[in-house]
């Protein structure tokens, strides 16, 4: 019962998220340096909000997303690289936080899907293509001569 209650609570939360959601809520949250701010936004758009799970931390108005946006900007100002910040996020929240999963043993099939699927499609469609044998080859000298003789006879 309490479990389902938590679920309901989280659904209501998401509804609230959906209704009042917007990126960076106040302008003073943004970094004064536009290059760093752009970096922060592009990084934030690759991180999943852990409360409103179908939004990025950049889009979500959940308090935790706001905290994480703040952390991203703080760390960028301290001179950390986006890769380091992503590693920090993985250490704290696991692979769940990345909207683009890293290439690993678990995600190998996911990342190979385009290749596998194209190969399968190619193998299935291969017999359909017209083979070179179907296109008439040019006549050999011997055949040309024979044809010439036949026409002559007529």
């Amino acid at each position, binding site marked *: 019962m309490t479990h389902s209650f938590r679920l309901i609570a989280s659904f209501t939360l998401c509804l609230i998220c959906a*209704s009042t959601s*917007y990126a960076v809520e106040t302008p003073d949250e943004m970094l004064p340096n536009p290059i760093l701010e752009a970096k922060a936004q592009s990084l934030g758009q690759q991180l999943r909000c852990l409360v409103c799970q*179908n939004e990025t931390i950049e889009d979500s108005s959940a308090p935790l997303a706001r905290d994480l946006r703040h952390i991203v900007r703080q760390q960028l100002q301290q001179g950390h690289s986006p890769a380091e910040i992503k590693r920090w996020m993985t250490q704290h929240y696991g692979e*769940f936080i990345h*909207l683009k999963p890293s290439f690993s043993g678990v995600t190998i*099939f996911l990342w190979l899907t385009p290749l596998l*699927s194209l190969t399968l499609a190619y193998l299935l469609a291969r017999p359909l*293509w017209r083979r070179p044998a179907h296109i008439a080859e040019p006549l050999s000298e011997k055949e040309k001569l024979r044809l010439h003789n036949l026409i002559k006879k007529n």
Partner: protein
Amino acid sequence: MASSTLFFTHLSIFFSPEVGHFALALACALALLQALLPSLGLWLCRTDPAHGPSSQSPLLQFAKPLTYSHALALLLAWSCLITAALGDDFSLRLIAETSATSKPWPYKIAGLWGNHEGSLLLWVTLLSLWSSLLATVPHQSLHRPTNIPARLQTRLIALLGYISAGFLLFCLTTSNPFLRLWPVPLEGMGMNPLLQDPGLALHPPLLYSGYVGFAVPLAFAISALLEGRADALWAHFMRPWVISAWSLLTLGIALGSWWSYAVLGWGGYWFWDPVENAALIPWLTGTALLHSVIVTEKRSTLLLWCILLAIATFSLSLSGTFLVRSGILNSVHAFANDPARGVFILTLLALFTGGSLLLFAARSHKITSPSFGAFHLFSREGTILVNNMLLCTLCAVILTGTMYPPFMQLLFGRTLSVGKPFFDATTIPLALPLLAIIGIGITLPWRYAPPARTWRRLTPALLITLGNAVPAFWLFPSPLAGLSALFALWVITSSVIDLARRLHALPSGLRSYLRLPRSLYAACCAHIGVGITILGICGMATTQERIIEATAGTHISLAGQDWCLDRLTPQHGPNFEAIEARITVRSAPRSANIITILHPQIRIFPAQNQRTLHVAITHRLFGDLYAVLGSVKNDHNQYSAILRLHYNPLASWIWLGGIIMACGGAISLRPRIPFRIRRKQPV
């Protein structure tokens, strides 16, 4: 109580929920008969199918009347539901949970399909309407030798009856919209204000008509497997149904995307949410089916592929619509989840999809199509085949991406996410070659074209596209957007030039232009639509955005325009209170040339205790002006607002392209022009 409400309360004497419930049960029984009687009839006279109408079982005569009465019963159920909704009958659970007296009346009706029970009823009703439409087509006779054969039509009606009966049973047992509530509440709980939008009111009927419409191609596929025979004629009869379902699905998806752009206020139009993917996946297989059916009709090849695609499209739209509601997928579009319903849905899915695929495995060897070695790369059908491969790969990628997280959690206990950055990285490299091949394929003839001629035909479009390379990369700051825009331009120019070439070859005059097969116009139109949508997507990638705290009189410069917050005023709506900002956009500060005035609002709905942001948008051809009022602060009687302003270049092209694509479908469905036939008669 308003007099209109009173009128509907009186009307409910005739159209009471109990009548509706009865109508639903009646519809279920009729659907079952619609499935069983013709099936029995077809089985009884299976031995001598070659003989004429004399050998037909009388049971077959029941098919059409049963279809019509089944649809009528469902329409009666809807009348009862609508009467209850307009009469504010909160003794119905559905209405108490989704409606309120203060809601405007169009949303009282639209709110009926904004929830699980009502949308399921809509789903089965649309299916019954599609079946009725199929039944109204006059079958083959001496006067109409080219129409659909009676046996095929009856079989299709029976097959659709099975699907209807299954879902009506589901509706009656687990999701009955006519359940009463005790004690009766005085006021309903109201609908989520976000859903009170004309776009979203129309979105489910359109989308569902598309989804459900693919049941007809499925019936064609099953019928072909049962008979063990399929040919070009079979594809010819199936094609209009595929095209109409596809067009409606296209419109439905476009409308849904527009809604999320215009109402949610996130400034985005596609979020790769499971619900959105659930609509996109059948759209992709449907597109593949649409093109394959044309190949089958022309060349009698790819029969099995068409059958498989027809099964896949309907199964995917079915699983997409319903698995979203079972709570398995983690989506923002939260329906009230109920695992008991999920089990029923899964059983139905297993019956329909599993049954079809089992039939496919067992009977497909009976259907022979001379496909082997029939395709040349430099031909219309060759390029269609390549694009089929790309479309199916796209579909596989999106399907895997959507289903990967729950399956990894189930199998390995790992929680991970697959979102927009993944889909962007995988789908764009597949979509670009797709666009390139559309541009080539549309100019190619059937069977074979020598590479030299192909090259000659493509040169003008290629030159125009390359000539626009510099402006494209200059206009679109991101190289990927610029490149995609070039591909879109390539599709458009190639389609237009090809049509122009064909028209040029004819003697001039409207009459001769109309003699050109309408499929050419349709293809040109639909592909231009694709190009326009892609251009819109590229434009949206270069969106400009500013978030700013402003007081009355603040000037903000964005995208070369001057946006000025004039004032903040309170407003009253029918069921909400609002704070409205007035933003005037001018081409320059203090210029007399006012581009537009935007009125974004913060709306507070007391019934739901919910706050929504009402976005203000001015759609313009080359870019939308988009304003969101985030919040309002009161600092010592000095009001200040947090505004988010966007300039979205080419945004409206995304949905315009969708409408043009659907128009392409409509053109190919246009009834034959009579004089075309008359002209042929003297010959």
